[in-house]
């Protein structure tokens, strides 16, 4: 839940201001929630968009619910099935490459976690995206400072990540992931970049829920 709350503003800004829906795969914008465990935030926004019924949110993860624990393309509005970390970016590189090859105007937005940067496939993908000069690819890293077993700085530090992406050839922007204006300003800049852009959005895990804010607590009983 903490990981869901840290990316609420990121997903809200993307889905309400930027991601353009279309039935044409080359003209639509794609949103890939590579940190699929934040699915509840995505589902809440899909309900706001009217793509899924609001009541469904309360049935999430139950046997008769369409809402799976991680995003699944069987759910309206979900572009790519995720849940296994480190794969969303590679899939996004494939989509962005195909769109460019076919002269489409669609963009690919990918939301990753900071813990997710541990996955080796991320290296494989960020090096390839630069080779393909994917100006239509925008990655936002929800930098909430936690991974499953605890604080990122205790498990495996990743403070150097922006430098690595930058050295490889990505445009790197830092912003406040809970500030709508900071996010908008970062994404607006990314849209005019001629190379792929990564936005490291500093966030707080569990933002807005005092019991878990800034902790690694996984679940909380709100109505107990």
């Amino acid at each position, binding site marked *: 839940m903490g990981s869901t709350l840290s990316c609420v503003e990121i997903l809200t800004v993307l889905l309400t201001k930027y991601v353009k829906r279309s039935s044409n795969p080359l003209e639509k914008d794609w949103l890939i929630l590579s940190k699929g465990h934040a699915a509840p935030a995505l589902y809440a926004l899909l309900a706001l968009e009217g793509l899924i019924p609001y009541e469904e949110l309360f049935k999430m993860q139950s046997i008769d619910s369409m809402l799976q624990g991680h995003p699944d393309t069987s759910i309206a509005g979900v572009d790519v099935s995720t849940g296994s970390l480190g794969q969303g970016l590679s899939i996004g590189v*494939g989509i962005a490459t195909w769109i460019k090859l076919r002269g489409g105007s669609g963009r690919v937005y990918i939301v990753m976690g900071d813990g997710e940067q541990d996955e080796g496939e991320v290296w494989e993908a960020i090096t390839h995206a630069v080779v393909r000069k994917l100006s239509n690819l925008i990655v936002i890293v929800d930098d909430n400072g936690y991974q499953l077993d605890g604080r990122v700085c205790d498990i495996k530090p990743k403070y150097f990540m922006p430098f690595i992406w930058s050295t490889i050839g990505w445009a790197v922007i830092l912003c406040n992931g809970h500030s709508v204006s900071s996010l908008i300003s970062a994404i607006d800049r990314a849209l005019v970049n001629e190379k792929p852009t990564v936005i490291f959005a500093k966030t707080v895990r569990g933002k807005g829920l005092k019991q878990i804010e800034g902790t690694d607590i996984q679940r909380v009983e709100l109505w107990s």
Partner: protein
Amino acid sequence: MELADVSMRDAVGRLLCELGDELGDLVIVTADVGKATRAYLFGIKFPGRYFNVGISEQHLIDFAAGIAVAGGRPIAIAFAMFLMRAWEQIRNAVGRMNLNVKIIGTHAGFSDHADGSSHQSLEDIALMRTIPNMSVVVPSDVADIYRSLPIIVKDIKGPLYYRIGRDYSPRITNDYDYEFKLGKAYVLEDGYDVAIVSSGPILYEVLNAAKELRKLGVNAAIINLMSIKPIDEVTLEIYARKCGYVVTVEEHSIYGGLGSAVAEVLVTKYPVPMKLLGTSTYGRSAKNVRDLLNYYGLTAPAVAKSVIELLTMYRR
């Protein structure tokens, strides 16, 4: 159909070029093995639709998945062994989203004889077979490739694993007349004493074993199970009933491969005594494929001997 004296990988490389003319949405993706897999031939002809992602098999599969999800027709081609490090990507992206990604694993089985156990893929059929939505096709020779690959790329939607070798490509099925259909087994030789089911270049040994068996008065039916998944339950059941004994021969582990697939069908449809021939351990280096077949007991005489053993065990 031009059946020049080429290897399986050369045949695939040439065919992909021909298909590239016909299919404007065909994209070939490889992982720094463009030359070894012959995928580079496509790259020379269609540089805009050829992507070499570097030594990155996990990314290779998800990149191809991305192209497919956006409407392209990708083929991911690399060494069978190293595609398997992306099993989870194949399972979670290609399989789970049921994407139209064709995966060609080359250098499979013993075909990469010199490189030894690190390169000899003897588990790939088992790994691919377990993935829902995934089809598994193992052509036996160049003729089988010409029969099947164009249909697979043009007409069959969804994930499919296509397993081929490197250079060792005996001509096996040139003289047989059949068309490829996914899920169909082909009876190359009819018989009634035992049914031998196989696919891949090792089918060459099986056909020769059948000749030796005939001299001993054993009439073996030979079934080319090119389509391992979906599997032709009807033909397998008919021949189990007709022959009463089934032997499977594969250039793959007996755990989870073609033999297991046949056994899974027959144990529910019509159980008969079976013998599964294949490997149960890692490969090793050798100067040629035949030395490996000999070492692992998979030559024609060894197959014939196993068949006789099975028949005598139950015919006392």
